[in-house]
């Protein structure tokens, strides 16, 4: 589904990603771990299409298409979803209105009419239940005054509504208490199918107890320096990053 080859990218001043190679197939869950500043968030931002970063070399292929040629919204239409580490507050737009617009725009791009209001509300209710989201939430302004946990839950709610093929969860566990973490992870697990894939970016092994990865990659200084199965995460938790980064 996703093939990243020798990806080098950064800002005008510094190169942050220094040659990333990664392949993600449908049905898989990949975890990307690494210390602060290793380039985890840059990688997710580059995949999602943030314009602050420049592509210097390499390629990102998504379902046979060069992702780097597409605008962020086009990537979303193709099925890429980024759950933000710091979701943005948008005062003046309700959660329901935001999601309605987002879904309608995606459907428009795919040549579909907007969902009838009745179906949309039904879908929203189902997904809200999945994530134990309370009723009044839909009419609140997008992320405004949300707690850290509510913001993250809102990200996964949007993911559930947009039904992406590839989801990148950037530090979705930060700011979540253990109950919220369980709910969010449970939601992510329920949304998994053999046709979609997930990349979990995290600092800690904790989230991976709930969302069990097929592969774990360690990112350090803009490169993947070690890959392995889910045991690698446990090993990292135990020994810290030093034992690989110092090698």
């Amino acid at each position, binding site marked *: 589904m996703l093939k990243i080859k020798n990806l080098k990218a950064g800002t005008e001043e510094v190169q942050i990603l220094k040659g990333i190679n990664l392949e993600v197939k449908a049905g898989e869950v990949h975890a990307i771990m690494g210390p602060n500043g290793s380039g985890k968030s840059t990688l997710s931002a580059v995949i*999602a299409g943030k314009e602050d970063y420049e592509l210097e070399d390499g390629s990102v292929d998504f379902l046979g298409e060069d992702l780097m040629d597409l*605008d962020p*919204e086009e990537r979303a239409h193709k099925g890429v*979803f980024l759950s933000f580490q710091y979701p*943005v507050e948008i005062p*003046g737009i309700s959660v329901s209105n*935001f999601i309605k*617009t987002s879904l309608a*725009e995606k459907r428009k791009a795919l040549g579909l009419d907007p969902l009838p209001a009745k179906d949309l509300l039904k879908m929203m209710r189902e997904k809200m239940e999945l994530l134990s989201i309370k009723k009044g939430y839909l009419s609140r302004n997008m992320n405004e005054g949300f707690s850290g946990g509510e913001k993250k839950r809102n990200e996964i709610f949007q993911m559930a509504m947009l039904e992406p093929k590839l989801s990148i969860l950037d530090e979705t566990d930060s700011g979540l208490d253990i109950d919220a973490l369980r709910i969010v992870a449970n939601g992510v697990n329920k949304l998994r199918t053999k046709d979609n894939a997930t990349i979990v970016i995290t600092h800690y092994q904790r989230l991976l107890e709930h969302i069990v990865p097929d592969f774990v990659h360690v990112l350090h200084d803009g490169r993947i320096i070690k890959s392995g199965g889910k045991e690698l995460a446990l090993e990292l938790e135990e020994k810290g990053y030093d034992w690989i980064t110092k090698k």
Partner: protein
Amino acid sequence: MGLIDNLEKYAEHQNLSKDKRMMFDSFMKKGFPTTRDEEWKYTSLKKVVKSEYNLIQKHSEIDNSIINNHSLGIEDKIVFVDGNLVSSPEVKGVHVSGFSDFDCRNNDVISELNSALAKSGFTIVVEKDTVVENPIEILFFNFTKNSFSQYRNRITVGENSELKIIENIQDLSKSSTLINHFTHISCDKNTKVEYNKIQNNSKDSSLIDCMNIFQNQDSVCEVNTLIFGGGLIRNNLNFEQNGTNCESNMNGISLLDNNQFADNHTFVDHKTAHCRSNEMYKGIYLGESKGVFNGKIMVRQDAQKIDAFQSNNNLLLSDNSTIDSKPQLEIYADDVKCSHGCTIGQLDEEALFYMRSRGIGVSEAKAVLTYAFASEVIENLSIPELKNLSQKLLAHKLNVDLDFSL
């Protein structure tokens, strides 16, 4: 030649009373204000008054379909066509008639001119203890090419009464026109009055609007000014509080593009104690449009325990749009709460990327953020048809096909 000459010639043939002649002479002596005048520093009438105007509006017939096209679908309508009152509603406890002359203090030369020569306008009297349930829509249509028209309107709302108005001035002449609109509102004790203005015209039509509101004790008055287009728009909105426990609210949206220009001048005169005023103006400027906001709040010495709030937030969506914003607070009482704030900014890049990553295209994302910016004013509109129209006009002006209602 120009408007001044047109006016002089016109006035010669009018049988003006002594008072009106004096007012007209006073106007002629001073002429139209220029940018040297402090109150008109950022608003130049030079181009507008240089043009030639027709001072006599021709009487045209109007097709009902035109009225319906511009109406919000409100049942009770007052309709003016080229200065003639062609339709007025029957509402219990409300007396609607055409122009009836009245004297009042003139604000400036432009209201002097209005006072001297205006011969058209509406008069609404609401009896006391009358709650007018449905809003009344007032539509002014102009078809006369290159007309200079003046309206002089008066609303008197009796004790314990409530009234809601939507005013829409439509210039359909497809030519350069100028309107001098003057409205005097008296709100008696314990009244509730809401006045909504839709100002959405072509770049060739200019409007100078002056509204003076006098409030007695326990009255609440709200004016919403919704500007979606026009060549030159100047709104003078003046509140005078003459009794305790009054509340004056004013909200505005200016959404302008191309070379459009809009100036909102507000003045709240807090003369009595225990009163409130709230002011929220939002400006959105595209193209080479220009906005002006001047908000003056006066708190007189005896007006203790005043709570006055003013905000003017502006969004500049292009490199060539400008806004001049000026709060003016004059406070002579010592136990008052006054705050004001002004912001000028662009759309938040982080928020734009966030929305794009959710599949919302650039123009749509910008429109949604712009709507979000304006929503505080739009969402507060009490008349659903008006809220709906504002949402539609906003989407239309920003060139997107989005439905903001849900």
